[in-house]
Structures are given as structure tokens and as C-alpha cells.
């Protein structure tokens, strides 16, 4: 069964068809990449899947249930977590606290329990803290736990953001350009981390510009151009796809 099944998805802004009749599926446990030139509609597609935008038409089925039209927090509660292209860590909070937010959907204490500091919240808090710290250890950043997240190095912030998403224990992880702004060594580290995330049994959908990363770790790749899907195949086949080569490198006669 597919973890994510997108059918006939359409979203336009004014006269621009940002995402035009796109269908695809992501198999459970796979890493699927979404590539395409700037303005191809990758971010819009990502926002549609994660609930930031509602589709004009089309359906999104996630883990057996319709999620199109749901708000991001509802989508998250169903087991989908994401990272952001432009890092969106919570300022004035430590790296550990940032990751603890990821445990939100797995904990319950509300306003009243919090204000009265009820004993039942103590155990929950301890559990949240332990889980978050465990994730930092898994990602090899346990040493950063007490540091203000937004004062970390850029590459470390990317990993903390990944940790925050992992803390949700998602079934599907959406990564929006996880290698953006990283140098080659950091990109290789990120690729390694994403492979290890797959090893946890988490399905991954990734938008990325860095071809080395995409080709190395993806099981399948979708190529978007002007809002439409033009290819959906294994990495090797994508590399040899004439249409893909044309939109990335231009027409043969235009190459000079």
C-alpha cells in the first residue's frame, strides 16, 4: 500500500497553474525525491501535501485517510512531519526544547494541568525530555542540547530541524531542500542521516536541488516542470530521460 497517494492535484494562483493535474504515489518505506527547475511548483506541491495550502481540486490520501483540506496541525497529528527550506527553528529556545516541541502530538497536558502543575504532567515532561534527548543522540548532536538553537551553526540547525521532525515519530517525513546552504561535507552527512532515517522505517519525500544527494539516496524521483509532472522513475532512468535533460540543460541546438 502506498503511504502517500496524490491524485489529480491542482492549485492555481490567479492565472498561474502552479500545480497542474499532478498524480503520484510514495511507497511505504521508500525515499522519493521531487526535483525540477525553479518555479516548477515543487514548493506549492509540498505545501499542498503538508496542509499549508488547500488544493483547488484533487485528492491526497495519506496512510489510508484523506488529508486534503486539513490544517497543518491536523496533518501532523496523522503522522506527517516536515522540515523547512528556510530553517524555522524556534528562537530563544534550546536545541533540546525545539526537539521537545516535536513530541507535542504524543503528549496531552493542557492549560489547566500545566497551571496546576499536576503530578501526571511530571511523568509526561520527563518522558518528552528523554525521547527528545534520545533523538539528539541518534543524530549525534546530544552535545548541543542546552544551546540556544538559533545560535548554532547553519548545518547544525538543519540537523536540529530534522530532529524536531523525527520527534513526531512520523510515518512520512517531508524534507524541503535539506541540503540548501550546506557545504559538500555537510551534504554528505545529511545524506547519511536521511538514509538512517529510512532505516527507522520512515517514508521520506524530499524536495532537493542538490543532484548528488538526490541521485544517491532516492529510490524514485519525480520531475516537475511548469506545474506538471514530466517524469516519475528510478534515478538511473531519470538521468537518461531526454525530456528531463532538455529542461535542465536546454535544447541541444541551444547549447552552442
Amino acid at each position, binding site marked *: 500500500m502506498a503511504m502517500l497517494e496524490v491524485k489529480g492535484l491542482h492549485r492555481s494562483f490567479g492565472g498561474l497553474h502552479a500545480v497542474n493535474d499532478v498524480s503520484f504515489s510514495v511507497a511505504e518505506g521508500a525515499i522519493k525525491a521531487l526535483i525540477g527547475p525553479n518555479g516548477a511548483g515543487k514548493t506549492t506541491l509540498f505545501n499542498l501535501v*503538508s496542509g*499549508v495550502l488547500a488544493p483547488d481540486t484533487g485528492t491526497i490520501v495519506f496512510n489510508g485517510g484523506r488529508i486534503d483540506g486539513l*490544517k*497543518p*496541525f491536523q496533518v*501532523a*497529528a496523522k503522522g506527517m*512531519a*516536515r522540515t*523547512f527550506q528556510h530553517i*524555522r*527553528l*524556534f*528562537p*530563544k*529556545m534550546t536545541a533540546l*526544547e525545539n526537539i*521537545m*516541541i*516535536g513530541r*507535542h*502530538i504524543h*503528549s496531552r*497536558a*493542557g*492549560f489547566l*494541568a*500545566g*497551571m*496546576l*502543575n499536576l503530578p501526571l*504532567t511530571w511523568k*509526561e*515532561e520527563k518522558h*518528552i525530555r528523554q525521547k527528545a534527548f534520545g533523538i539528539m543522540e541518534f543524530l549525534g548532536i546530544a552535545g548541543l542540547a542546552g544551546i*540556544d538553537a538559533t*545560535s548554532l551553526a547553519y548545518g547544525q540547525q538543519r540537523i536540529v530541524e530534522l530532529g*524536531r*521532525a523525527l520527534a*513526531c515519530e512520523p510515518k512520512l517525513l517531508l524534507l524541503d531542500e535539506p541540503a540548501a546552504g550546506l557545504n559538500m561535507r555537510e551534504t554528505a552527512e545529511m545524506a547519511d542521516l536521511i538514509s538512517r532515517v529510512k532505516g527507522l522505517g520512515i517514508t521520506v519525500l524530499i524536495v532537493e536541488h542538490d543532484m548528488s544527494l538526490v541521485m544517491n539516496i532516492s529510490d524514485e524521483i519525480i520531475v516537475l516542470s511548469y506545474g506538471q509532472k514530466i517524469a516519475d522513475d528510478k534515478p538511473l532512468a531519470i538521468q537518461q530521460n531526454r525530456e528531463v535533460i532538455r529542461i535542465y540543460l536546454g535544447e541541444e541546438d541551444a547549447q552552442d
Partner: protein
Amino acid sequence: MLRHKYAQVFMLIAAVVGVERLTRFTDTHQYLTQLTMSGYYSLVIIGLCLLIGYAGQISIGHAGFFAIGGYTSAFLTTFNLMPYKDKALVSFLSKAGIAVSRGDLYGGQVLCIHPWAACIAAILLTVAVAYAIGGPVLKLKGHYLAMATLGFGTIVYKIVLGTEMLGAADGISDVPAFTLVPGIEVSGGLETRVMDYYIAWGLVILGMVLLLNLVHSRVGRALRAIHGAEDAANAMGVNTGRYKLNMFVVSAVFAAVGGVFLTHYNGGIGPSEASIIKSVRYVAIVAIGGMANLWGALIMGLGLNFLSLRGFFGSYDDAVFGAILIIIMLFTPEGLLRRDLFSDIRALLSRRDGAGEAGKSGSGGEDRA
């Protein structure tokens, strides 16, 4: 963290007792009156501090909630039900002990709602209004939210000012004492000055404990996340809309409780308590205390309200609070009471001396973090 949090609460308790002892030894008991009133205003301020500083939502209408609390309490505890005592509802209230008779100033008997019942009614009404207003209004951001809450404050002010039943421009007077338990009452009499002081500051201490707990809870963490990056908090499963609304309601209830108790203490309430300038004053105090700093807000709330109530600012009272808001926003938007204040001042002074380097690093104090 937890131990640290309560250590400060114990210091507050010690300070509250210490101040009362001090006024006893120095024979300055008259100060307790303003300290008591400042305590009730501080309830509004610490609630608002959490809304502004932690949840990141501004409200320039909290005097409205203070007034809803105060006026509901004042109206219910002074409106004479005696003429209606044969009506089913009134006789039921009377039998249930919710309406009680007492002697009025002129020796007659009046039948009014018991202060406890009135207090609960005031809180329930505040919760209802806060949900009704907050639902649509909190979808707005920044200036728009500020203007919408300003509109709400204006409406409450105009309603209490224009309603004959609520005393119009005179407000409501002759509000009875609030007997919390037999022997302990909020009355504002000279002989109960010490008791009133302890009730007010007991409430403030309770309020601080509740809010400090909240700050250090799962909800507090989510609120800070909303403040920092709302879209990311939402993507992590935080129902940002509901959290903001709940925080708005909690802060409204804090304001209303302050209103209820101050009304019983003063024996009445007037429309000026609902005025916009009061709302602005609350925001100014939160700002000067340091937006996300409960202790700073409390200390500033106490200090500035005390000075204001003592008449220290004379006729320029409101102007002073306006000026404070401007100065804080211009020079220290993070508030006055914070750790790196002294390094900032040093940097500012050395810039005056022409040491450009120190001046540069002093702009935000980030280098010390």
C-alpha cells in the same frame, strides 16, 4: 529549573510579609492601601504579560475584561431583588443561598446576589466574552490585532459609560464587602487594611505560581514556539489557533479577577477603569517589565501602579505612561528588567565617550549570550 522557579516565589512571599512588617515598624500603614490596589492591577499585568510575551499576541483591550469582571460583580451584589422576591427565579436564588439579604446604608433591607456567586458569574461572563471576541479577532496579526482589541476596549467603555443601569458616568457604588470565608473579607475598611493587603498579594502569589507553572509546562513551550515561528509550530501539530485563544481567555480571567476584587475593595467601580488609557497603561507596564518576563512585569506593575496611585505623577499620570511606552519601544524594546541591561548601559555610555567599538557591540548584547 523547577526549584529555581519556586525559590523566587518564596522570595516574593518573604517580600510581601517584609513590606507589611516594615510599614508596621515605620508607622506608614497608609501605604498598604496603594499596595493592595497595585496588587489587583498586577493580576491584570501578569496575565497580559503571558499573552504578549509568551504567546506573542497583543491586546489593547484588557481594561475591558477588568471592567467586565468589576461591573458584573458590582451590579449583581448591589442590584436589589427585593421587589421581585416573589418571582420564581428570585425565590429560588434566595432559597439556594445565592441571593442574600443585608441591611443597606439607610437601614432598609435589600436582597442581592452573594459576592461569591457574583464573582463566579463575572468569571463565566468574562470567559464567554473572551471566547466570543478572541475567536475571530485572534486570526488577525500585528497592528490589525492591536486595532481590533482596541475596538473591543472602546465598546466596553462606551457601554458602561452609557448604560443607566450601570450608573453611567458615576459607576456603581455601595458595593458590599466580599466575605471569602467567615472572618476573612475584602472590604477596604481602615481596620482591615492589613488583611486586605494579604488577600490581594495572596492572590498575586497564587497567580504567579499558576502562570510560572504554565510557562514551564508543555503548553508554555508550545506558546513560546508559536511566538517564535507560528507556521513551524503548526506543522509540529500545535493547534496554534486554539492555544492563542486559550491564552487570551486565561489572561482575560486574570484581568476580570483583578476587577472583581478591586471593586469590592474600593466599594465601587467607575467607567474610567474600562478606558482605553488603562489598557494602554497595562501594555506599557508589560513592555517596560520586558515582554516575556513575568517577574519584570510584576515588579514594574507594582512599582508604577504604586507611584501612580500615590499621585507621584500628578496630573501627568497618563502622559507618563504614554511616554514610558515611547521610550521603551525606542531604546529598549526588550524591556528594562533583564540580565544584560547593565552591559547595555555601559555600552551606551562608552559610545557617548566616542569609543565606537564598544558602542557597536552594545546594540543588542548578543555577544554576551
